[in-house]
């Protein structure tokens, strides 16, 4: 039904957020992806997260690369500027945009082909730099638009729809993100909105490089027996270490705190994450332990999900560069041009 325009009217009783917007105000155009695509669930989760956070839609810049996942920014936040850039190069465009205006919220949307293959370098370097962003990889292990080739996140030994067995080792983007210094690292599943929405909210509030790997089954090319990115496989092998509730700066903590099972993680902007531990031993602030935990479970064929790591005192690229508070794109001649008198002194120094 993707050829139908989305109706503009909506039920007058739709709930509104603090800004008076309904979730419809955070939608984009109708998705042109396949019916049942995991990516559409992630789109829904982003819409819900932004609605619940009461973000002004135009304060978000959504930037993507090329591929099915990179098409999705058209389907959410229709009042935000979007940029569908070049294959594998979303991170550099986002980094530049972020440098120009530190006041917007940057949402980078990419896929496993876009980020783990052609864009692996840019994926790595934007995390190294600590760009303040939410970087979501919609990970289905397969190239959809070009009809079903393996991507670099496809597990070794998994089978393609055509029956070919993948003999290459897979890239675990979460492990890489941890190793590269991302200050917020999570994995979730497009089929688990309850886990995904609060993770996205917490990532947006996080003042640093937040990376979320979302396993998102491809119903057209990677949802068969033998695939390790199918709905059934992910459900069966999902090893959630925690579930979380995101508590914005404005909200009181409404949870019953049970010592030992709930951990409150305070973020730099004052928001809090109430972490309900499903694995009592999992420590969310220990980068090295997280890496070990992931590898240990991956060896058993399990997919670890949840908030896997968050740095308490995260810093972003602007802090590293010590840039002015005012966005660089707001500065004019007065602030930027040293003028003719200074130029005269420069000339004098060159004789």
């Amino acid at each position, binding site marked *: 039904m993707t050829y139908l325009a989305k109706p503009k009217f909506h039920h007058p009783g739709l709930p509104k957020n603090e800004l008076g917007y309904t979730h419809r105000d955070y939608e984009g155009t109708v998705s042109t992806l396949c019916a049942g695509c995991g990516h559409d669930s992630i789109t829904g989760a982003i819409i819900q997260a932004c609605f619940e956070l009461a973000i002004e839609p135009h*304060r978000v810049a959504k930037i993507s690369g090329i591929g099915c996942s990179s098409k999705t920014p058209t389907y959410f936040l229709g009042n935000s*500027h979007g940029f*569908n850039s070049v294959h594998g190069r979303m991170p550099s465009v986002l980094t*530049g945009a972020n440098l120009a*205006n530190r006041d917007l919220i940057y949402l980078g949307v990419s896929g496993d082909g876009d980020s783990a293959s052609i864009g692996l*370098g840019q994926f790595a370097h934007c995390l190294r730099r600590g760009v303040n962003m939410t970087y979501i990889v919609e990970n289905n292990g397969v190239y959809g638009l070009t009809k079903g080739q393996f991507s670099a996140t496809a597990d070794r030994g998994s089978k393609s729809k055509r029956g070919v067995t993948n003999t290459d080792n897979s890239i675990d983007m979460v492990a890489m993100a941890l190793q590269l210094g991302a200050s917020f690292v999570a994995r979730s599943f497009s089929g688990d909105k309850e886990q995904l929405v609060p993770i996205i909210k917490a990532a947006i509030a996080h003042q640093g490089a937040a990376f979320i790997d979302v396993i998102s089954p491809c119903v057209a090319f990677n949802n068969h027996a033998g695939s390790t990115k199918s709905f059934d496989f992910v459900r069966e092998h999902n090893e959630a270490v925690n579930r979380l509730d995101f508590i914005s700066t404005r909200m009181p903590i409404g949870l019953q705190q049970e010592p030992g099972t709930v951990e409150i993680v305070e973020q730099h902007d004052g928001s809090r994450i109430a972490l309900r531990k499903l694995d009592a031993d999992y420590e969310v602030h220990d980068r090295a332990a997280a890496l070990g935990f992931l590898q240990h479970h991956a060896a058993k064929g399990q997919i670890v999900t949840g908030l896997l790591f968050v740095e308490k005192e995260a810093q972003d690229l602007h802090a590293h560069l010590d*840039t002015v*508070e005012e966005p660089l794109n707001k500065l004019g001649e007065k602030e930027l041009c040293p003028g003719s008198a200074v130029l005269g002194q420069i*000339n004098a120094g060159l004789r």
Partner: protein
Amino acid sequence: MPTAAPLSRINDFVVRFANVNGSGSASANEMFARAIMRMGIPVAPRNIFPSNIQGLPTWYEVRVSEDGHLGARGGTDLMVAMNPQTFDKDIASIEPGGYLLYDSTKPYPASKFRDDITVIGVPLTAICNREYTDPRQRQLFKNIIYIGVLTALIDMDVAAVEKLITEQYKGKDKLIAPNIKALHIGRDYAILNLPHPIGLKLRKADKVGDKIFVEGNAAAALGAVYGGATVCAWYPITPSSSLADAFTKHCAKLRVDPQTKKAKYAIIQAEDELASIGMVIGAAWNGARAFTATSGPGISLMQEFIGLAYFAEIPAVIFDVQRAGPSTGMPTRTQQCDLISCAYASHGDTKHIMVFPENPAEAFEMGAQAFDLADRLQTPVFVMLDLEIGMNHHLTRPFTWDDAKVYDRGKVMTAEELEAGKDFGRYLDVDGDGIPYRTYPGTHPTKGSFFTRGTSRDRYAKYTEEGAPYVDNMQRLLRKFETAKDVVPKPLIANAAKPTKYGVLYFGSTAPAMDEAIHMIESRGHAIDRMRLRGFPFHSSVNSFVADHDFIFVVEQNRDAQMRSLIVNECGIDPVRLVPILHFDGTPITARFIAKAIGDHLDQMTMKPAKVAS
């Protein structure tokens, strides 16, 4: 006795230093050039260096010209041969009647030398070994000692050198006295032991005036500061790295908030050229002025992104400091060889804006102007520098800036205009100049947002694969390119004293050699009109200049006559009328080369047919 009469010239000669890379000669040699400038004599130094950090041969050439001819001349009048590796070749390159200064500590057989030059030996190593015990000092002071020798040999103002030493080591004052001492060790040796001055002499003049002495890359970077660039993303590559380094230094001085001490700029050394240009495009899309600096291989890597910026209409400034290609080519040699790869960068139908500075003064002006052009035309702008301009010091007119100048941010729709209900179509040509309005992200809560993409779209930025809107958009981009013809820097014409059928087109670093060559061509009895190209697309005056002459010489520093191809292609001119004059061995083009090539052509063209017997 020399078989050629020793050269005898005042304020008009070429000195060449042959050194070993990494031996610390560069600063001594530069001081030599600077001291001559301080004597009021125009000077043009050139660094001829290898792609190497230590050990390979390197040369520093100083052209002294009271007449102000500052292009490369070719040939060496006085060779300071300090590198045994290149000794034989260096001696062979001296002009007949020229001079050789060498380290005579180890005696050479007479067969090593030529009998048509004057050989001057100074036991530099022996002197250094006697004066200094530390090996590094022996090496470093040797450079200053030979400068001291030269002050006596060519009548150089020793006070000017002493002053430069004092300036150079300001803050490291301990080094001043030993350097001045070394200078005098050399000078005193020459005064006591050598005939001096030689036939090549300096005499104080007043031909420098208020000119400044600066490298093109530093000037271009200063242009970027004045032009309002706030984001620089770059990847190290010779010969452009010093542009980004200079921007960093300028910003640290000129762009720090006096109260908070925070930076009004952001500089990222990216992971590669793809990321550099990606960051530039992201920043410019978001309303900041952004640039990258690179060279040919970087341009090749940026192709896909440049096409995106063209098609999605995002400003970007790219400083291309050209070096000899193709591939890695000769990374430390100069050429003008990226014209076509920049003019038509990326797949599909694309055309880009280029500007061609001739020297550091223009590199500063065009370096600033490029940001206005990029914002006005919403497209990538290439500032076409080369190694010759970028990495050498040039004596150039001083930088100027008009404080009344306001940046041209181009067509940007504001929140107020959107609120007032002004129609916003991102790719809608409301003014007929092919340039649409854009909005910066975050402008208005409900109006003016759009999706930027490299895919086809309609006038309101809505995705479409329909043929008609695609063609409509591509035609508009051509209209915009037409608009650019009157916006980019216009060519400059210098007509010959008498009417002529011949013209010459040239651009960039060829300018000083061309200006000198014109006199040489005239002295062969030919008249020729000159046009210096400064921007692409070509202004209509380029067409008329070609139309007004029977034959046009197109002088450029590449093998394939790339500028000539652009003229043929863009102006629809019969190639027969454009005679290529090509210099592409990696050295800067010389007046001698141009004058000979054009002069020989003109001799043939103007040859009168022999009288036919009746």
